[in-house]
């Protein structure tokens, strides 16, 4: 047995390994047990170690991406806005009951045309993070976003969204104010927009709170961003009944840009400077600016009706199933 390899296996796998090792141990002690069978069992056991250590290795790699995607060092929504759009003017409030500082919205100019920009902003230091509620949206935020997107639709401005959120805020008030309907309403509105919609996942793409802003004609992910139906931690708590499974969950969920491109859930991966966006924020922002400009060019050739139809078709065609 290769003990070194076992060391590299995730805790949760270890439990399984130990229990099967105990079985082998029992087998050894059995009278009718033949050496050949024992060898088979041991080889199977070793294969298992091999498999588990590979899974663990991969999980660790994915987990690094998770941490990187969440890193406060990466450029954030406000950085992209500042670096990409001229005349950016922030617009506040849902005109209903409040303003959500975790979601930034406004108008700006790129390539000589006006666009609406909406995005999650997490904030960098503790104060900022608290102020922005760590990028976790509340209904007022999604409704503000809807208001600005409607404004954009009315005036024919393309919509650019930046996604970077652990997920919608799980608070009592948020629930009482209709978090569910705010998210579904945002998704629905984005399908109704007659203008090009470009969504860029710049960091963490957490669940429904991310999707609420990510119904784009083109959805792009930065190389080291992640996008997931549930946080690996929560997934682990539910499925592995244990928080230590978070890295395995991160791998199992397929949340990297590469995975999502392969699955057809996004259109494009935007490559980052070597070592990640945080190594050269200026260049990263330029790359994203170029992407947005190019995407605007690509989408500019479609009529409003076509855009809506293609957007609906794209999302309605996602899914894997079989018959019989």
């Amino acid at each position, binding site marked *: 047995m290769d003990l070194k390899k076992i060391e590299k296996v995730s805790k949760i796998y270890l439990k399984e390994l130990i229990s099967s090792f105990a079985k082998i141990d029992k087998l050894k002690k059995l009278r009718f047990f033949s050496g050949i069978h024992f060898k088979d069992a041991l080889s199977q056991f070793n294969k298992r170690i091999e498999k588990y250590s590979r899974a663990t290795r991969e999980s660790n790699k994915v987990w690094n991406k998770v941490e990187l995607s969440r890193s406060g060092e990466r450029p954030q929504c406000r950085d992209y806005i500042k670096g990409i759009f001229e005349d950016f003017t922030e617009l506040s409030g849902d005109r209903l009951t409040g303003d959500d500082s975790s979601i930034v919205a406004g108008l700006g100019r790129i390539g000589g045309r006006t666009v609406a920009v909406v995005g999650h902003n997490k904030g960098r230091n503790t104060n900022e993070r608290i102020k922005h509620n760590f990028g976790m949206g509340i209904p007022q935020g999604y409704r503000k976003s809807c208001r600005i997107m409607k404004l954009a639709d009315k005036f024919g401005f393309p919509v650019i969204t930046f996604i970077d959120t652990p997920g919608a805020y799980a608070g009592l008030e948020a629930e009482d104010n209709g978090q569910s309907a705010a*998210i579904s309403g945002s998704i629905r509105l984005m399908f109704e927009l007659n203008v090009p919609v470009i969504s860029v996942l710049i960091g963490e793409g957490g669940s429904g709170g991310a999707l609420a802003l990510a119904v784009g004609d083109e959805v792009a992910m930065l190389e080291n961003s992640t996008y997931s139906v549930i946080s690996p931690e929560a997934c682990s708590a539910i499925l592995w009944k244990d928080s230590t499974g978070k890295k*395995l969950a991160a791998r199992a969920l397929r949340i990297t840009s590469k995975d999502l491109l392969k699955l057809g859930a996004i259109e494009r991966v935007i490559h980052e400077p070597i070592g990640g966006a945080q190594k050269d924020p200026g260049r990263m922002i330029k790359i994203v600016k170029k992407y947005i400009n190019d995407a605007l060019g690509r989408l500019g050739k479609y009529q409003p009706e076509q855009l809506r139809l293609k957007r609906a078709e794209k999302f309605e065609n996602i899914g894997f199933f079989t018959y019989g």
Partner: protein
Amino acid sequence: MDKSQKHKCEACGKDIEQEVLIKNLNVCPYCGHHEYIGCRRRLDITVDEGSFKEMDSDMRSVDFLKFRDLKKYSQRLEEAREKTGLSEAIITGEAGIEGYGVAIGVMDFGFMGGSMGSVVGEKIKNLCNRSIKNDIPLIIFSSSGGARMQEGIISLMQMAKTVSSVGRVMACNIPYISVITNPTTGGVSASFSTIADIIIAEPGALFCFAGPRVVRQTMKKDIPDDFGLAERNLANGQVDMIVSRSDMKETLARLIRLLRG
């Protein structure tokens, strides 16, 4: 099933005779608690007898991510199928309600917590298309813990997919009624179930995005006892009405009559 068998109400703890419980549509005669019922039973008590024609009955989930937690997804699916006798967490089809033709979908919490994966999404899409094609109202009974983790990002995308599909129904001015049953949370509460013309909830149904446990954790303090319940949602403006199981069919028929002008 032994009809004289006793059943303990989950809410008030009183013993109910099985026969009484079934006659009462699995609603406690003492406290009015609405118990879980499966989707076949729901259809039986909601649509006109013999009128239901199932669609996509042979559509099956596939483990395209080779997802494995403590169990393999494929194994979980197998177990759910065996346990429920259903092929997936939703059953869809055409039916009549007091003579009105409808496209109806009923989710079943018993099948992997009513979680929405590719099959639930696709079945809803096909149901919507049927609603549009035949110009018949769309009714969906929701009951779900949310998106199906085992299908990763693809299950998240079903939120967008289903919203787009029911959105197309609504854009045709075909009535869409969403019925919230216990529980409806997460990816289902934040997608097709909350953008209907009319949203009805069953009494006592849990209806929220984040569940009470998660919210308690986030808030680091106690939350009200009625957190996320249908009644609280009514006060919070999220549902049009709360309708008891015994009035559901009549109410749906009346709403269709009204919405059809």
